[in-house]
C-alpha cells in the first residue's frame, strides 16, 4: 500500500499511468470500434484527417483507415513490447544470475559473451537477424528480445554480486539449500526491483526498434503496426505528412507512458528517495 501511495505522489508517474491505460483501452477496444480488418481497403487513398466523418484520422496511401490501424496497432506495439521484454529479461536474468552467483570462470565466460553482444549496435544485429530469419511478426519480436538482453544481464549480475554473501544467503547455504533454490528462491526476489524498473526501458526500446524496422520496410507488412504505417507514409511524406505523423504521435505517447511509469516505479521502489 505504501508503494502505491509513494507512486501516486509523483505527477509524472500518474500522467504516465493514465497514458498507458489509454493505450491499453485503445488496444482492448480495437475489435469493438473497428471490427473490420484494419488492412482492408476502406476508401479513397490519402483522405486528410477530419475531412471525412467516416475516416476521422483520414486514410493512408493504400486507402486504409488510419484510425483503425492506430487502434489495432496499439495491440501489436504492446504485444511486441511485452513479449520482447519478457524474452530479453528472461535471458538477461538467467545469464546475470549464473554469472553473479558462481563468479570465477562462469562469470568470465558469460560476461565476455555479454560484452560481445554489447559491442554490436543492437539495431545492426537486429537487421542481421531479420535479414536471415525473415520478417514475420514472431521472428521480429524474438529478434528484438535477443538483441536487448545484455544490459539486464549486467544489472542482475551486479545485484547478485552484492547479495550472494549476505547473511540470509549464507544461512540458506548452511541449511543445505541447493544452488538452484538459492538463486531463484532466495536471491532473485531481492535482486528483482531494479530489473523490473529496467524492463520498462526495454519495453520502450522494443517498441521503438520495431518502428525503426518498419520505417525501413523490414518489419512484417501483414500486420497493422504503427511502424508499418510510418513506413508507408514515407512515400508521401512531403505532402501528406499526416500518414507518418499520426502513428508517430501514437508511438511517442506509448514510449513516454512506459518510460514515465518506469521512472515512477523506480522512485517508489528506491528507499533513499522516500523522504524527499
Amino acid at each position: 500500500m505504501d508503494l502505491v501511495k509513494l507512486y501516486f505522489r509523483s505527477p509524472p508517474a500518474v500522467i504516465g499511468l493514465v497514458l498507458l491505460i489509454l493505450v491499453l483501452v485503445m488496444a482492448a477496444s480495437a475489435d469493438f470500434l473497428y471490427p473490420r480488418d484494419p488492412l482492408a481497403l476502406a476508401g479513397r487513398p490519402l483522405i486528410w484527417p477530419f475531412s471525412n466523418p467516416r475516416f476521422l484520422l483520414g486514410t493512408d496511401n493504400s486507402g486504409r483507415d488510419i484510425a483503425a490501424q492506430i487502434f489495432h496497432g496499439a495491440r501489436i506495439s504492446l504485444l511486441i513490447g511485452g513479449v520482447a521484454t519478457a524474452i530479453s529479461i528472461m535471458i538477461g536474468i538467467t545469464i546475470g544470475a549464473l554469472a553473479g552467483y558462481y563468479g570465477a570462470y562462469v562469470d568470465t565466460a558469460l560476461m565476455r559473451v555479454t560484452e560481445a553482444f554489447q559491442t554490436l549496435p543492437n539495431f545492426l544485429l537486429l537487421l542481421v537477424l531479420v535479414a536471415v530469419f525473415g520478417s514475420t511478426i514472431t521472428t521480429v519480436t524474438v529478434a528484438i528480445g535477443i538483441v536487448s538482453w545484455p544490459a539486464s544481464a549486467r544489472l542482475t549480475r551486479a545485484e547478485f554480486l552484492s547479495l550472494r554473501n549476505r547473511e540470509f544467503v549464507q544461512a540458506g547455504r548452511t541449511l543445505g539449500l541447493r544452488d538452484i533454490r538459492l538463486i531463484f528462491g532466495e536471491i532473485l526476489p531481492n535482486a528483482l526491483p531494479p530489473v523490473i524498473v529496467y524492463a520498462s526501458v526495454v519495453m520502450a526500446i522494443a517498441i521503438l526498434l520495431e518502428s525503426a524496422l518498419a520505417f525501413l520496410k523490414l518489419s512484417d507488412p501483414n500486420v497493422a503496426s504503427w511502424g508499418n504505417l510510418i513506413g508507408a507514409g514515407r512515400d508521401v511524406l512531403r505532402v501528406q505528412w499526416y500518414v507518418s505523423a499520426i502513428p508517430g504521435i501514437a508511438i511517442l505517447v506509448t514510449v513516454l507512458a512506459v518510460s514515465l511509469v518506469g521512472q515512477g516505479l523506480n522512485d517508489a521502489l528506491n528507499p533513499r528517495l522516500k523522504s524527499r
Partner: protein
Amino acid sequence: MDMTRRAALKTSAAIASSVLFPMRSFAQETPRKGGVFTVHYGAEQRQLNPSLQASTGVYIIGGKIQEQLVDLDAKGQPVGVLAESWEASPDGKTITFKLRPGVTWHDGKPFTSADVQFTAMEMWKKILNYGTTLQLFLTAVDTPDPLTAVFRYERPMPLNLLLRALPDLGYVSPRHLYEGKGDIRQNPVNLAPVGTGPFKFVQYERGQHVIAERNANYWRANAPYLDRIVWRVVTDRAAAAAQMEAGQIHYSPFSGLTISDSARLGKDPRFIVSTKGNEGNARTNTIEFNFRRKELADIRVRRAIAHALDIPFFIENFLGDFAKRGTGPIPSVSTDFYPADNGPQYPFDKKLAAKLLDEAGFKPGAGGTRFSLRLLPAPWGEDVSLFATFIQQSLADVGIKVDIVRTDGGGFLKQVYDDHAFDLATGWHQYRNDPAVSTTVWYRSGQPKGAPWTNQWDWTDPTIDKIIDDAATEVDAAKRKALYGDFVRRANTELPIWTPIEQIFLTAISAKARNHSNTPRWGSSSWHDLWLAE
C-alpha cells in the same frame, strides 16, 4: 495544402502534356564540356553487364559503358552503333553485319567480329534473359574478317525483328575478358564492366554509388560532353526527391519517384517531369502465378483472382492518368502488333470469383479463409507496392489470405526466378517495340532457370510455344501480326501471368540537362550527346 492524390495526378498529367519537351533556345546554345551528371539508382541488380541481363536497372549504368550493334534514333528507327550496316539474305536465314572500324575497348584492345561472335553465342543465346528465346534458332556467327559478323539461323529471322531487338538485346562484351575465365555469370568483369561506350567504369560501391568517367578515346568525335556520371543508390523514393531538390541528383529515371513527389517536382521550374524518352519502354503491371502451388495450377483459381481485383478502381484512385486498363501482354501503344481481339478480359466480379473458387474445391475454412498465398512485390516503383497491398486487400474479400514478402531487388529476382520461392509475384513486364523481344519469353517454356523476367512459373503449353516460335520466324508482317493475336488470346485464356494495367514510365530531370529524352529509350541509351548547362 489539401491536395488529394487525384488532384496530384491531374496536375502531373497536365505537366506531362504541357512540358512535353523543354523547347528553349537550344539552337543558340553551344554544348558545354565537363560537368558531373548524377543519377538516381533505385534498385541495385546483381550485376551491370547488359549482355547478360536485359533490364532498365542494368541499362541505366551498363548502357553508358557498353554499346550495342544497333540503337534507336529520335524517330524510333534503327541506327548503327557498333554495326555500320546490315543486310539479310532473301531466305531470312543469314543476316550480315558490317562493323564499325577503329573502335577499341576501354582497356585498349581492338573491337572485332570475334567479340560479336562470342557475345552472341555464349551470352545472348545462352544466358541473356530475353536473348535465349530471340536467338533460339541461331546456329553460328561466322567471322570472315574482323569487321564482318554473319549470323546464321536455322529458321528465318525477320530482319525487322532483329533490328528492333538489338537496341536492348545487342550489347557486346569483350571476348578477351570472358573466354576461358570460368563461369561467365560469376566473372568479376560483370561488376566492373569494360566496354566501347562513351563512359569508362571507375568504381562500384555496393549500396552507395557507381562512378564512370569520360572515355577520351571514344569513337564519336567530340563526345561525350560530361566528365563523369555518378549513380547514387537511393532506395528511399522520398529521399531521392529531396536530393533532387537539393541539387544532388539530376535525373530520376523509370518512375523512380513517388507519384505525389513527381507531381510536386513537375510544378518546380528547376525540373522537367515527363514521359518523353520512355516511348520504347511501355510497361504492364503483372501478376505471376507459380504453378508449383496446386491451387494456382487450377485455371479456375487464376481466373478467380483476376475477377477479384477491381482494376478500374485501383487505376482511378491510385495511379491516375498515367495508367490505363491493360488488355494483355501486348500493350495498346504497340500499333504494329496490338490485336483487334484480345480474348477474355476478366472484369471485376467478386461473386463469380467466389463461385470459381468453390468449383475448384477450395471452400472457405475457419474464419472464411480458403488458402494462403505468399506475394512477392518487386521493389521498383511505388505502383508495385501499392498494387501488392491492393491485391492483398482484394483477395482477402474472396477468402484468399495473402502474405506480402518484401525483398530488395536482387532478392526479388533470386527468389522468384531462381529459387521459385513465391506463390504470387507482382512487378513490371516491359514491352520493347516487338513482342519477340521481351514479351513472349514470359510465356515460352524451356527458359534457363534463374533468367529474370522469363517463364519460371512451371507452366508449359505446347500450343503457345508453337505460336511463339512460328511468329518469331515469320517474315511476312501481316502473318506475324495475326500470329501475335493468337498469342495474346491464348495467353489471356490460360492466364499463366496476368497483365491488367498498362503504363508509360515517368522521368524527372534537371532543367539544366540538354539533349535529353531525345530517343524512345533514352534512359537506357549511351548519353554520348548529353550535356549540362551552367
